[in-house]
């Protein structure tokens, strides 16, 4: 070695402060990993009796009968996926358009307070959304929106059947309202961060503000906007109380969006206190495990899509 002795490393962390700091940051990040592994292990252990009793058919069976202890998760998986899909489609469209408006069109006196209000919406407790959904939105769905949709689109199975007010569509709309602030706020931040010279390049060659926003700014921000939507979708999948209040809580699969349904999270919240047999409890925990895995899968898929988009743009 040509390095002089005065440069030789004695130890990785020399001072006690260094060592303390290292312990805190290492410990913190390891704690997160342990937490998620522990959660998974705990869920598997808790649902083990149910996994043994019903096997993989738990996922595609649609009976949910506590009396005969016959459990299948399909209606809840269906309800969870459908409400979240409705929510993300509505919320992505409205949220992204609102973000474009806030980032590029709203004058400052309007944009600042609006952005603040939207972020405030995200802080409203979900039970409040649930109350509003139950007493305002559900009746309105039954008397106005539902019949109107049915009048126009009644020939599509999605919009056929009796309208109860509570149901898949109402659940999806409540979820959409709850996640729209997330989509809007994050997308707006991403759009604002797009360099100004890109906007000017488009404007300076005769494009209108709209053309610039839709053809240049939004595509340049697509990775971040997509990330905002995934974050919102994650919230929609796991959201419990507001959906429970407006979805109708019936473990059935129906083609109609007006039909009552059930989600994984709502079943757990509703029935955990009344689960009298150990197999019932175990089946509920297995629903939790499925929800955990679905959320993980959605996030992993989103990560993967973001990577692939970034990868193709890499120089």
């Amino acid at each position: 070695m040509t390095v002089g002795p005065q440069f030789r490393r004695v130890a990785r962390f020399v001072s006690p402060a260094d060592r303390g700091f290292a312990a805190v940051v290492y410990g913190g990040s390891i704690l997160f990993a342990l937490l998620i592994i522990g959660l998974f292990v705990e869920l598997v252990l808790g649902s083990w009796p149910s996994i043994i009793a019903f096997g993989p058919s738990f996922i595609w069976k649609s009976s949910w009968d506590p009396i005969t202890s016959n459990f299948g998760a399909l209606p809840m998986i269906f309800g969870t996926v459908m409400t979240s899909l409705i929510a993300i489609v509505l919320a992505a469209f409205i949220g992204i358009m609102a973000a474009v408006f806030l980032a590029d069109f709203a004058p400052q006196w309007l944009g600042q307070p609006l952005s603040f209000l939207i972020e405030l919406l995200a802080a409203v407790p979900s039970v409040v959304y649930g109350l509003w959904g139950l007493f305002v939105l559900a009746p309105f769905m039954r008397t106005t929106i539902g019949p109107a949709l049915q009048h126009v689109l009644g020939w599509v199975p999605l919009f056929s059947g009796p309208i109860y007010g509570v149901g898949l569509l109402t659940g999806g709309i409540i979820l959409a309202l709850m996640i729209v602030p997330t989509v809007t706020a994050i997308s707006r931040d991403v759009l604002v961060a797009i360099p100004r010279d890109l906007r000017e390049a488009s404007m300076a060659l005769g494009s209108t503000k709209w053309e610039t926003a839709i053809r240049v700014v939004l595509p340049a921000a697509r990775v971040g906007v997509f990330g905002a939507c995934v974050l919102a979708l994650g919230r929609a999948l796991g959201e419990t109380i507001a959906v429970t209040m407006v979805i109708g809580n019936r473990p059935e699969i129906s083609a109609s969006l007006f039909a009552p349904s059930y989600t994984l999270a709502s079943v757990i919240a509703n029935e955990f206190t009344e689960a009298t047999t150990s197999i019932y409890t175990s089946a509920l925990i297995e629903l939790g495990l499925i929800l955990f895995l679905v959320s993980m899968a959605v996030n992993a898929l989103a990560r993967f899509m973001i990577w692939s988009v970034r990868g193709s743009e890499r120089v």
Partner: protein
Amino acid sequence: MTAVAGGELLATQDLGAYYGTRQAIAEVTIAFRRKAVTALIGPSGCGKTTLLRCFNRIHEISFDARVEGSVFLDGHDIYANDVDPMAIRRRIGMVFQRPNPFPTLSIFDNTIACAPKGLNYQGKMEAAERALRSAALWDEVKDKLRTSPLRLSGGQQQRLCIARAVAAHPEVLLMDEPTASLDPIATAVIEELMASLCKEFTIVAVTHNMQQAARVSSVTAFMLADETGVGRLIEADATSKLFTKPSDRRTEDYISGRFG
């Protein structure tokens, strides 16, 4: 102040520009020679970029920005009430200091992004080839038109931006320090390009590089901020004359390197 006689494609009259209450330039009256390169020179902060941005009404998209006086394109005041800024910007194209291709569009789509609408595929292809050829980029990109512009070098990206501006069929090309972020070789390519483009377009180029102004322009305009920080046009003259026998003392000080 040397004002050139009438009939010019682009001219200004008592032009002033503001950011909020701060005046950036004042009382600029100048006319630009048709199908020639005019260089705007001057020290940093003298308002030359602001002046350039007034010519295609892009100055006004900045927050709280304002313009007074007139800019004439072919004798018509582009700041008149009934003028559509978008239509003006299609006739007066712009190239920026930093290459700024649209990152999510392919090289081909970038080239025709601002071209006149309503072309079929064949028409788009021809327009793209013509623009890329006049930007001296065709031979380098013809086999990768569908790939991302971000894979190109800085100089190539800047020529792509020039092609994009050319494809919009402008009459005037504004260039805001088009070589400021490029290496000397890429700079030489762009300078050659300016010499060939001025056969077709009226070019106004901002530069902080006096050698560049001397090399590429036939007319040079010198700007300087006064003691209150407001940019003013000191003189505009044939480049050869301005660099050898300037009529203003301040121009002479600047080009001989006494300040700036």
